[in-house]
């Protein structure tokens, strides 16, 4: 798959989450996603970036513009945190009405086309999401 | 086989370079005959396109073989894409555009016959030239097809938008009559267009009428629910009308929870409810008639 460009953005502070949103918004707009798709992608990125920061102890996000036969945007969130023990549990919706952890993974999954998660207890977590044009 | 051809294309390149001007002149003459379409393009434009094509061909043939997908043909392909697209827009047919390339054959063959002496070599060069020009001509046809497909796709999208009209029933009350089957793509468009209308018209109530929707399965029901929830988040209420008895049964059977959503059997029931919710009241004009009658009685 041909990659047009790739940049890595550190996710180690709260303001980084804002930066993530801005970068993803720019990239989504450049690819030409519809407004709704842009919103979904940026929101998903916000959820995952926050996870990386709060549950993963900080990490980074790779922003990859895909230029293969299909145009797309791929985001890879990596952290060396405690990892997620039970992935299926984490993917289940924590319907957030008030407080509640709600890892936001289940929701984020619905906002993108492709979703992959790789996590090992004590090693770290890697979440890859892709949206196609 | 490929290496032999590649070498030969190098020959072709130099033949083209040497006889460039003659070939160009003959080509232009060739074109006045067949599919020139003077009504669509003037002489200067044609000359410019031919010149560019020829020069690019000389370049590409010199470095590459006859495989037009090779990197050395990138500029050539770009130019053909440009020509094909602009011609599509101008109204040329696929044949006319491809013929633009094919009509180069005769002048090229003439140049080859002039230059090469050996009969076998002539045959080889002619074959190389044919292959090359065929590939290029076919490429223009491919690009043409893709452009047409783009146009069709865009028209389909527009039709999709037209087929989901949002109607303003009254100040603050919208109606969305759905007709036909609801698939995922269509529902997205419908949802977005309804929500945009709500904002634009400042409507507090939207009636989604599903009388014209033949079946409601879990997928459709979920989409409807999502639309209703989204509208609520924005500050508007939705009423679903046109719920036929069979649909009501299906919904119950499927265990779909529509508890939060108001449903009405008919559009008029829904409108009556919407009116109430927005503080509208309809008064029948009886009072005036009575007064007129009284006046007439007085006169009499």
């Amino acid at each position, binding site marked *: 798959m041909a990659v047009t460009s790739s940049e890595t953005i550190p996710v180690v502070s*709260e*303001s980084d*989450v*804002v930066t993530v*949103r*801005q970068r993803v*918004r720019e990239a989504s707009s450049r690819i030409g996603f519809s*407004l*709704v798709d*842009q*919103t*979904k992608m*940026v*929101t998903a990125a*916000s*959820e995952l970036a*926050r996870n990386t920061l709060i549950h993963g102890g900080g990490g980074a996000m790779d922003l990859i513009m895909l230029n293969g036969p299909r145009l797309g945007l791929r985001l890879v969130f990596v952290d060396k945190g405690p990892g997620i023990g039970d992935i299926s549990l984490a993917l289940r*919706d924590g*319907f*957030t*009405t*008030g*407080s509640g952890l*709600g890892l*936001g993974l*289940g*929701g*984020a999954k*619905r*906002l993108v086309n492709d979703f992959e998660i790789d996590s090992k207890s004590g090693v770290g977590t890697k979440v890859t999401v892709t949206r196609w044009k | 086989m490929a290496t032999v051809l590649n070498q030969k294309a190098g020959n072709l390149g130099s033949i083209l370079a040497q006889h460039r001007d003659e070939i160009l002149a003959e080509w232009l003459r060739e074109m006045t005959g067949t599919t020139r379409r003077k009504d669509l393009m003037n002489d200067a434009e044609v000359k410019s396109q031919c010149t560019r094509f020829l020069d690019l061909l000389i370049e590409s043939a010199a470095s590459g073989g006859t495989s037009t997908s090779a990197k050395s043909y990138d500029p050539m392909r770009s130019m053909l894409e440009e020509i094909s697209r602009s011609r599509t827009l101008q109204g040329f047919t696929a044949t006319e555009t491809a013929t633009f390339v094919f009509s180069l054959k005769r002048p090229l063959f003439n140049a080859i016959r002039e230059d090469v002496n050996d009969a076998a070599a002539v045959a080889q060069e002619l074959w190389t030239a044919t292959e090359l020009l065929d590939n290029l001509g076919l490429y223009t046809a491919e690009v043409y097809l893709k452009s047409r497909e783009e146009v069709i796709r865009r028209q389909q999208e527009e039709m999709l938008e037209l087929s989901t009209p949002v109607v303003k029933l009254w100040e603050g009350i919208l109606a969305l009559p759905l007709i036909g089957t609801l698939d995922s793509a269509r529902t997205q468009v419908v*949802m*977005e267009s309804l*929500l*945009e209308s*709500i*904002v634009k018209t*400042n409507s*507090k109530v939207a009636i989604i009428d599903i009388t014209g929707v033949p079946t409601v399965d879990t997928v459709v029901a979920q989409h409807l629910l*999502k639309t209703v*929830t*989204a*509208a*609520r*988040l*924005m*500050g*508007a*209420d939705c009423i679903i009308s046109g719920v036929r008895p069979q649909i009501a049964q299906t919904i119950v059977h499927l265990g779909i929870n529509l508890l939060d959503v108001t449903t009405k059997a008919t559009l008029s029931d829904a409108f009556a409810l919407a009116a*109430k*919710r*927005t*503080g509208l009241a309809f008064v029948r004009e009886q009072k005036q008639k009575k007064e007129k009658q009284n006046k007439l009685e007085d006169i009499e």
Partner: protein
Amino acid sequence: MDKIPILRMGEFLLVTIQVDMHDRLAMTLQDDLTTRISETGARGVLIDISSLEIVDSFIGRMLGNIAAMSRVLDAETVVVGMRPAVAITLVELGMSLAGVKTALNVDTGMELLRTSLDGDEAMNGSYV
């Protein structure tokens, strides 16, 4: 951007969120609002999010918290101006924003606050 300004309009407080807030700013807003409500005895809070292009689960929870805390302080909260793309995304995300009243814009939001204060049954209100 240090703080989000809270305006007072009679009995109501008006907050217009126009920036992409980082989490701490959102928490600060929550605290500031609850403080202002008790200080002023405001009966209603209007949160205008018409400028927000993104509302994620964190902001969603913040709105829910504000509504809940205000209610304890005897004030109603109405969130106005949610954009269609945001609404669609929140639904997909699975956020119900239960307990948060919503309205199309500031005007209808004020109407909603007034009618609920008048003790009348909210005719044009939307309970989410």
